[in-house]
């Protein structure tokens, strides 16, 4: 079970995923010049990805638990399809150390980081430890605090505002934001009462409270020797209940020193663990304090990778395949140039008028926008039946231009042209987000969309 036993081979790839990412990987396989076999559930047998691949193999019924999430089915499909590698896409088994282990056991190449890294970043505790060891800033917090006086002392060090949290428990109970020292005594007492009532435990601690946070992430790629490149950052602060809706590259309106520090942190962390694939390091940026801290590592290709591709001209999925095949990084950091600005809107098959309820069904009319500076990644087509079993992403609509305002304008145009008939989609809604003055002025943050009054028709 040594990962150095044999030189990795990638000549025919089993794609263990569905939807737009399966199609994206099929296309990348073509770009790289390797074969592509798609593993599908019965619901996706006739999908565009399945038809575009060299072969499609049915691995189970529609339920993901019995198909896309079954390691044995995926590995067996690779063997049946004569594949020497497995690309897991995102979601499903993408971060599964079990699949990575199984690949090693069966002599297959896992197109992603090694199982060791998946385990390391799969645990919040060990991921934070790795970040700390690499000198990456972590969210500031305390151990358990004895009383309000200890809390005041700790808060003076952290800087207000702070959040009182119960050590055990969750769901918001016993949590209080404290803005100034004189509020601490009362707040601490209330939080303790609530914690005892809710969890039967009085232990409390403090965290720095970030009122306005931006989600900034850095795209990286490593060759496994400690050499790691970054491809700039992305801002994904437009979120609805922690689901990203709008992503852009590079992250706008960050002070240059802060942006450099964030990118360097990402490279330092991935270099310290000899990261050996493409991946993303996520951070929260504290807008008011002007600093940042580590969130997590996504050891896989991400939904929003396309905006980075648009500003760098680099095909990240092709790079991922080449790294899996043991090829070296083809550039130096200086050769990676970030030019212009790119924005992506996720379009989901959901009904904004019905609380974003999924709206699966038959697409009776499909006209995605095209043209200069516009890219659409989608698995949909006219007549396609959006199945009810999986997530509701139906298209990623992207635009790139010389600067952010031009990219917004172009993306608004693209969304205005986009027609999807037969099912409800979030097209109009995401278009409205782009028009918000706060978005133009980069005053948005991760809770911004949820606090925004629902836009009216």
């Amino acid at each position, binding site marked *: 079970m040594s990962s150095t036993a044999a030189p990795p081979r990638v000549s025919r790839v089993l794609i263990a995923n569905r939807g737009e990412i399966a199609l994206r990987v099929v296309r990348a396989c073509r770009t790289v010049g390797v074969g592509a076999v798609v593993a599908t559930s019965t619901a996706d047998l006739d999908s565009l990805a*399945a*038809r575009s691949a060299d*072969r499609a193999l049915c691995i189970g019924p529609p339920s993901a638990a019995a198909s896309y999430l079954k390691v044995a089915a995926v590995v067996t499909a690779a063997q049946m399809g004569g594949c020497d590698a497995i690309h897991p896409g995102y979601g499903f088994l993408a971060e599964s150390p079990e699949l990575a282990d199984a690949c090693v056991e069966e002599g297959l190449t896992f197109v992603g980081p090694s199982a060791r890294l998946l385990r390391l970043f799969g645990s919040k505790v060990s991921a934070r430890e790795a970040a700390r060891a690499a000198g990456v800033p972590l969210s500031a917090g305390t151990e358990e605090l004895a009383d309000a006086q200890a809390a005041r002392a700790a808060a003076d060090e952290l800087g207000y505002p702070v959040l009182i949290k119960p050590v055990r428990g969750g769901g918001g109970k016993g949590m209080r934001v404290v803005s100034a020292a004189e509020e601490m005594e009362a707040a601490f007492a209330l939080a303790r009462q609530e914690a005892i009532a809710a969890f039967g435990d009085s232990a409390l601690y403090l965290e720095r409270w970030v009122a306005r946070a931006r989600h900034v992430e850095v795209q990286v790629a490593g060759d496994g020797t400690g050499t790691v490149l970054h491809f700039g950052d992305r801002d994904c602060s437009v979120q609805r209940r922690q689901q990203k809706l709008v992503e852009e590259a590079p992250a706008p309106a960050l002070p240059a020193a802060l942006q450099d520090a964030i990118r360097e942190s990402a490279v330092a962390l991935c270099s310290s663990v000899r990261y050996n694939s493409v991946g993303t390091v996520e951070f929260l940026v504290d807008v008011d304090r002007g600093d940042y801290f580590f969130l997590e590592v996504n050891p896989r290709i991400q939904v929003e990778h396309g905006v980075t591709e648009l500003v760098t001209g680099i095909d990240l999925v092709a790079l991922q395949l080449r790294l899996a095949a043991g090829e070296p990084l083809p550039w130096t950091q200086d050769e990676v140039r970030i030019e212009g600005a790119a924005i992506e809107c996720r379009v989901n098959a959901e009904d904004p008028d019905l609380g974003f309820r999924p709206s699966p069904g038959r697409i009776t009319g499909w006209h995605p926008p095209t043209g200069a500076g516009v890219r659409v990644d989608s698995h949909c087509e006219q007549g396609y039946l959006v199945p009810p079993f999986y997530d509701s992403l139906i298209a990623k609509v992207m635009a790139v231009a010389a600067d952010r305002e031009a990219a917004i304008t172009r993306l608004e145009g693209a969304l205005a042209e986009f027609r999807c008939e037969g099912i409800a989609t979030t097209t109009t809604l995401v278009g409205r987000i782009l028009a918000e003055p706060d978005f133009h002025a980069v005053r948005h943050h991760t809770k911004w969309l949820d606090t925004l009054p629902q836009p009216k028709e």
Partner: protein
Amino acid sequence: MHLAEKDLAALIRAVQDSDVTRFDLVTPDFEIHIARGDDADTDVAPLPQSSTASPEAPAAPAPVAAAPALAAAVPAAAAEGLVEITAPMIGIFYTAPEPGADPFVALGSTVEAGMTVGLVEAMKLFTAVEAGAGGIVEQMLVSNGDYVEFGQPLVRLRPTA
């Protein structure tokens, strides 16, 4: 075959209330799979356009070269009045419990509902393929050691009245 939605609901309830371990219904418009055991889940699946298992007619060839293997398969069983036993998972199909042993069934064997007619192996795990209904084995559609996809027809039985 046309079924109203309430017929469907009634059907699913009836099957769930019974001791049936696996139920598959495939129409041109949808599929229903009900299974008991490890993978227990109830699915009402839309049927891909170039279906693999339409009971009415052989599947049309997929528009692009990469037609799923299943689509190219054997003529439909229903038209011949046969009952099909399909692969419960992707894997290697074995006709006998071990090399050299007698096969579970052969052409002409009489099979009872619940009887094992073969094994499917995936990553050293063997799953028994059980007959959903009784009958006489009329067609063996795959050979010992063949890879089979999920849902691929393996054996066809002539139902015993």
